[in-house]
């Protein structure tokens, strides 16, 4: 609580300034300058290998950057941040993985309860009440005692979203949350994401679900070869993409 200086209401939630990242000699992110405003839903799309996942993973520093800066809620993410401060910051950034990454040795309920107890020092009762509320919210109040191995992919991803929400993050990041799911389970996860967006959650979503982008996103970022080529409203982006690469990408999607 003490460290999260509540930034001014107008300030962006996430700011990328001149971000550069390389894997060895291979550039992964080039000159990224962008902002996610408070309450905004940004969908990041682009061909595979364009740097979308790398970009979203730099926000909570699962990936390091070589130059530039990233601010989350007014706080510098990279640079000198270490140890406990970094952990504290990460706990305020909800992150949902493509492969769910639930803890398989814990029940759905314990997956959601673990971090509030161990990191925030919440009491078991309080953590349990929060976890029950969140699991109910993602439609899994009848699965609280199930282990991840007993849940479908869509159910696991919904538990993962509840787990991230339990830390009460001011923003949620989604790294291809539906890409590992069977088609019939995509809808249930997107529904949860839609409801989060409708409640004003700040969201940054890497996804290939263009229907979701069209309906829910405030802005779409199109990435290719490590750069953000376009940042536009979904309406502009889908109707009138500026770059040749974006046009081809959209044409390929329609096939």
């Amino acid at each position, binding site marked *: 609580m003490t460290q999260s200086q509540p930034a001014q209401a107008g300030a962006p939630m996430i700011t990328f300034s001149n971000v550069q990242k390389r894997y060895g000699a291979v550039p992964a992110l080039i000159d990224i300058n962008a902002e996610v405003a408070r309450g905004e839903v940004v969908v990041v799309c682009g061909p595979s290998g364009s740097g979308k996942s790398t970009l979203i993973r730099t926000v909570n520093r699962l990936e390091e950057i070589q130059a530039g800066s990233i601010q989350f809620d007014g706080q510098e993410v990279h640079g000198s941040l270490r140890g406990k401060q970094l*952990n504290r910051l990460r706990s305020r950034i909800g992150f949902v993985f493509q492969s769910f990454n639930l803890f398989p040795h814990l029940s759905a309920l314990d997956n959601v309860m673990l971090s509030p107890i161990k990191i925030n020092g919440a009491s078991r009762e309080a953590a349990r009440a929060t976890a029950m509320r969140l699991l109910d919210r993602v439609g899994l109040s009848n699965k609280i005692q199930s282990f991840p191995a007993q849940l479908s992919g869509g159910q696991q991803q919904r538990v993962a979203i509840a787990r991230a929400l339990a830390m009460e993050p001011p923003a949620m990041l989604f790294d291809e949350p539906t890409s590992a799911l069977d088609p019939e389970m995509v809808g249930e996860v997107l529904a949860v994401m839609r409801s989060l967006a409708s409640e004003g959650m700040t969201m940054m979503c890497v996804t290939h679900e263009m229907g979701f982008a069209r309906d829910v996103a405030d802005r779409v970022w199109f990435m290719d070869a490590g750069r953000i080529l376009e940042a536009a409203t979904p309406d502009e982006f889908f109707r009138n993409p500026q770059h040749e690469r974006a046009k081809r990408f959209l044409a390929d999607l329609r096939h």
Partner: protein
Amino acid sequence: MIADIITIVRDNWLLLLVGQYPNGPLGGIAATLILSVLSIALAFPVSVLLALARLSKAPLLYWPATAVVFIARGVPLLMLILWTYFMVPIITGYNVPGFATMLVTLVIYEGAFLSEIVRGGILALGRGQMEAAKALGHGGASAMLYIILPQALFNVLPSILSQFVSAIKETTLGYVINVPELTFAANQINNQLLTKPFQVFFILALIYYVVCWSLTRAATLLERRIVTKRSGLSGAPLALTATAATVEP
């Protein structure tokens, strides 16, 4: 032949079971089991620390731990025992009893082997678990304690049990520094009888086999239960670690 064996067992069962206890030091199967249980119980925490040090990026942790593991794995156990037996009194000036010497040596030796099992168990979990822990705000210690180790140690339980079986067999080497364990007891019997070495050492082999086979069997059953329990999730690495665990008696 069978009659001989029965007679020998009938006359010497107490010696085989507990050695000369209570008139002398505890020996026989009891000493063998106590030595192997203690060695694994003490080697276990050592192995977790060694494994974590070997996975650490800090050179001050990584290199000493790696040296211990490589030396312990790279020399014969008997040599390690003789070194401890003869060197510790020279260095410290105290005479250390054979049992303690054997226990310390086994803890180092088993600790090194177990640490590689534990390290494998941690690596087999894959990056995702650690990333998920970090993303939620767990520090390294918290992630290890609540997320990584509970899974990794559970998955390598069969391998740990197999290592315990190895430890039982390794206690026989205590014989060379006069630790009164089971082999020592059998040799005492043989020295009294003089004419029945085959029968005596057949009994010895049979006892070791029954103990080790039962434990290996238990390891196999445990492994199957774990694979079943964990099946349905990203089970491949788990199944692999578990399969690698089976050791023949």
